[in-house]
């Protein structure tokens, strides 16, 4: 769990991407200046929970691929910076917008077929904002690379 206005340099320092763009390398530096123990504590399949304006600052895409590289498939936040949101969709990282204020570290979140998310501990049900069709299409293709391989162009 992280707070409000977490910038992409906090997610992964831009000095790190100078030496490598490989998520398998970069993942060990995930949130290194926020919480030095964070990277080692992540288990594959963990969900990242954030406050408002997650991923503000630089548009660098390693801030998304590093999160994915650590095995995190989704980020739930009160809001995202627009470049982080786009980059997430384009790489197949699921960005969910809903009120995260009652989620606690270690909570188990279960998503149902309607997209609603139930917090097993608190019983709270969250309903993330629905995604527009083009974003759904890119995500369901597995990201912008497979989407463009298939379509060669954008289709609305």
């Amino acid at each position, binding site marked *: 769990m992280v707070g409000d*206005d977490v*910038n992409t*340099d*906090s997610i992964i*320092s*831009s*000095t790190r*991407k*100078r*030496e*490598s*763009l490989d998520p398998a390398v970069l993942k060990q530096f995930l949130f290194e*200046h926020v919480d030095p123990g964070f990277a080692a504590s992540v288990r594959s399949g963990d969900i990242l929970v954030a406050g*408002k*304006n997650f991923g*503000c*600052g*630089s*548009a*660098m*895409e*390693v801030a*998304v691929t590093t999160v994915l590289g650590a095995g995190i498939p989704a980020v739930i936040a009160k*809001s995202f*910076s*627009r*470049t982080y949101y*786009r*980059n997430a969709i*384009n*790489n197949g990282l699921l960005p969910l917008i809903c009120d995260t204020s009652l989620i606690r570290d270690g909570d188990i979140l279960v998503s149902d077929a309607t997209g609603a998310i139930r917090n097993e501990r608190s019983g709270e049900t969250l309903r993330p904002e629905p995604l*527009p*069709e*083009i974003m759904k299409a890119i995500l369901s293709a597995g*990201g*912008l*690379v497979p989407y*463009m*391989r298939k379509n*060669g*162009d*954008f289709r*609305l």
Partner: protein
Amino acid sequence: MAGRTISEKILARKSGQAVRAGDLVVCEVDCALGTDGSVPMALDYFEAMGGERVRDPSKLVFALDHYVPPTSAQTIGLHRIMREFACKHGVTLHGAGAGIGHQLIVETGRALPGGLVVGADSHAVTYGALNCFATGIGSSDLAAIMLCGRIWLRVPQTIRVVLTGQLSVGVFAKDIALALAGLLGADGAAYQALEFAGPGVATLALEDRLVLSNLAVEMGAKNGIFPADAETAAYLRGRTEQAYERITPDPDAHYNKTVEIALDQLAPQIALPHLVDQVVPLADASGTPIQMVYLGTCTGGRLRDFHQALEVLKAGGGVAPGVQLVVTPASREVRDAMAADGTLDALVGFGATVVEPGCGSCCGTCGVIPGDGVSVISTANRNFRGRMGNAKASIYLASPAACAAAATRGFVTDPNKVTR
């Protein structure tokens, strides 16, 4: 039926359909910038997408600016990959030392009124000063543009920023931008456009407008757009042969919100570590000790900025003992102009370390970094912890004149106290 904002009008032209805020559209891109910070990943995406040729290389610009000069085998390798690709596909590439990509887009007349210009770097919003829709994207979106020449965009709601009056002596464009960041907050304009308006616009030079558009992203804005006027036309004269049409908003356009800033009431501002929206009147931070002063970046590295800083440095008798002054011109054109009019010699005479044009110390990827525990005052746009390459430094953001004032005294002080 309400009229349309500047952003709605431009995205309508670029998508070939009538649009309203909230619509999703696919648009033709007039120009796309990639840097050494974003292109290497974009080339990986492009290849993975099955890209063989660039749809329209004339609409693509590469700039080597984040790693200048390159100081490791890895960054030298990134530059080489970009040069080889640019050469093979006929893409314009500005080499290391030519300047910051955003500045080069503006200087070379690639950002024109009515256009859609994107950059794989968040500060691509800068070009909005020239009445074009300009926004930042990631490497994957750049790869898709290389492949198909297009991008999908959600037409943003618009916040109208009305500027009235005229700035007082010692108060500058950066102070307006910081005041606005303080007012709106780091996400106050998220997913939205900022549209500048009001009689105060005409009092701002094009270089001032670039500062306001540049900082728009620090409020979460998608773009920060100005109307075009005689000042815009004068700047573009000699920089482009291409015809362009000025885009004006309809008088009955719908705005999500209107905020007003009275320029004549504004005092110098400062952003405190470690958030851009943690803005207070500079007077409240007066006396804060400073050990490093940074003049440069796509916010504050233009000729006008260095003139403003130099005036204060001269009035204050130079740089105080124990203060390190680092200067990075935004481009070679800026540096040549500084050399021609004596600004460069004067700064060097005051002991400044002058770094090759580029992103410099701004994002910690090259240039001089601050030491542990050092307080820096900078003309840049971001003060996040670790931004300049050392998480143990603290960064304050202010106008070039306020940065210079701190250089002369060794602590934060109002530039007017130094010049008067």
